[in-house]
């Protein structure tokens, strides 16, 4: 899932200050699970924004609504007339949602209410961890299912660096060393010798470094002749 967190209220308020009619639009999938941008968080944000705007003597209305996913044209289409009734939409979706909306309905002004942080999962209540960078060339089969690209601060491929101590990363005691975890799992499966192989430089062209990516599947595309 995609993980995000709400932008500071001050930043949001400044962003939408020039607009009279504001719609805070929640997104009820990923960002609802990480408690950042679902219906509930959209309502809270709208309430805080109303108070803020009242104090700042800004006229207008702040309304709330949410859809299942802002990253799908069909779901945007269902509410398009409603969306067009506002001067600005404060999207509580991830960065993908914001962009899908303006690409589909170019006349809309959409602003981000969230900072999109990562792809990962909920570890426990209130804690979401990053687990994938979308590098386009998965190595999890080589690393016992633990991703060194997203979890190692240096994305290295040949074992733990010299900054790994007592299972923790040089970044701090609250960060696990991904390579330490990989080493432990390799040991448990009696596969430590896997680490002997020198992994060659990674081909980063499949990642963002190769430019913005479009995935095309000719076999499932609909021929519009």
């Amino acid at each position, binding site marked *: 899932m995609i993980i995000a967190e709400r932008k500071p209220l001050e930043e949001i308020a400044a962003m939408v200050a020039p607009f009279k009619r504001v719609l805070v639009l929640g997104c009820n999938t990923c960002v609802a699970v990480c408690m950042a941008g679902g219906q509930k968080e959209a309502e809270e944000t709208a309430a805080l924004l109303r108070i803020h705007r009242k104090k700042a003597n800004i006229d207008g209305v702040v309304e709330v609504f949410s859809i299942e996913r802002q990253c799908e044209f069909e779901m945007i289409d269902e509410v398009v007339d409603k969306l067009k009734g506002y001067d600005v939409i404060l999207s509580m979706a991830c960065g993908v949602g914001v962009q899908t909306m303006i690409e589909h309905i170019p006349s809309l002004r959409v602003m981000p209410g969230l900072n999109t942080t990562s792809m990962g999962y909920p570890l426990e209540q209130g804690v979401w961890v990053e687990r994938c960078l979308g590098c386009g060339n998965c190595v999890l089969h080589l690393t016992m299912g633990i991703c060194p690209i997203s979890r190692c601060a*240096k994305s290295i491929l040949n074992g733990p*660096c*010299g900054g*790994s101590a007592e299972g923790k990363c*040089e970044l701090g005691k609250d960060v696990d060393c991904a390579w330490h975890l990989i080493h432990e799992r390799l040991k448990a499966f009696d596969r430590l010798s896997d680490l*002997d192989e*020198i992994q060659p*430089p990674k081909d*980063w062209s499949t990642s963002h470094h190769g430019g913005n990516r479009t995935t095309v599947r000719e076999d499932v595309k609909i021929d519009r002749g």
Partner: protein
Amino acid sequence: MIAGSKLERMLEAGHFVVTGELGPPKGADITGMKHHAEGMKNHVEACNITDNQTAIVRTSSIACGAALVQMGIEPIIQIVTRDRNRICIQSDVLGAQALGIKNILCIAGDHMKFGNEPGSKGVYDIDSIQLLKGLKDLRDEKKFMGGEELDGEVSYYLGAVENPFADPFEFRVDRLEKKIRAGASFIQTQCIFDLDRFEKWMEMVRERGLHKKIKILGGITPIKSLGAARYMKNNVSGITIPDELIDRLKNAEDKKEEGLKIAIETIERLKEIEGVAGVHVMAIAWEEKVPEIVERAGLYPRPKID
């Protein structure tokens, strides 16, 4: 002989080698650094030039290395993979060659978080082992990392670092072996304060015969004050300082002399360990003490070599 640098010739001749370390300034005036280099010139075989150490912006290691070459002092330029991708690193290595630099130390480098540009984008296109392998292939196979052929040839002596105090401990010997296979001819270790652990590591190194495949230089850092010791213990990644050493400094009347004594004693012990080919003295902000340390450790005058 690979590159024929003085460092390589001294190591190959079997001498107990001494290397020093210089940190370029946070400015373009390198006279202070050159002064330190001049000061240790007759006491070390070669001098490391750090590459934006702890992710702090400093004058380029290659530029400073070239200045040392002009002074007749042999540089070992450090290259971190943190700041440059494979295009830039290979280009810089060719440039370093063109400027007469013959020793290269390959490292990943401390994370940007520790430096003065914590908002910078970390490159880490390749890791230190891939860097070693890439530069070895550039030299031996005359091929760039991407496979294209190099015009002419290059010749440099490749080194790496290893930290026997990092974890997982057993991997520290595996990693040394991996670095040997990747192309390292010499290794400089992290500062040694925990000699027992270092000896244990060397024992494992010898069990696998690795000391015969690579020249290992033990890292020495003289501790200038109790505060410096505590700071390194708590804040510098990859350094461990035993409590008894902290206590020894605490109880000493003359902390500086005690710090020097510890460094000298450590060198004395390293000289006795089979497989240790020399020492790498990192006298951070205390470069002027290098000659004294080398002399008091019985390593002066340095052997002459053609």
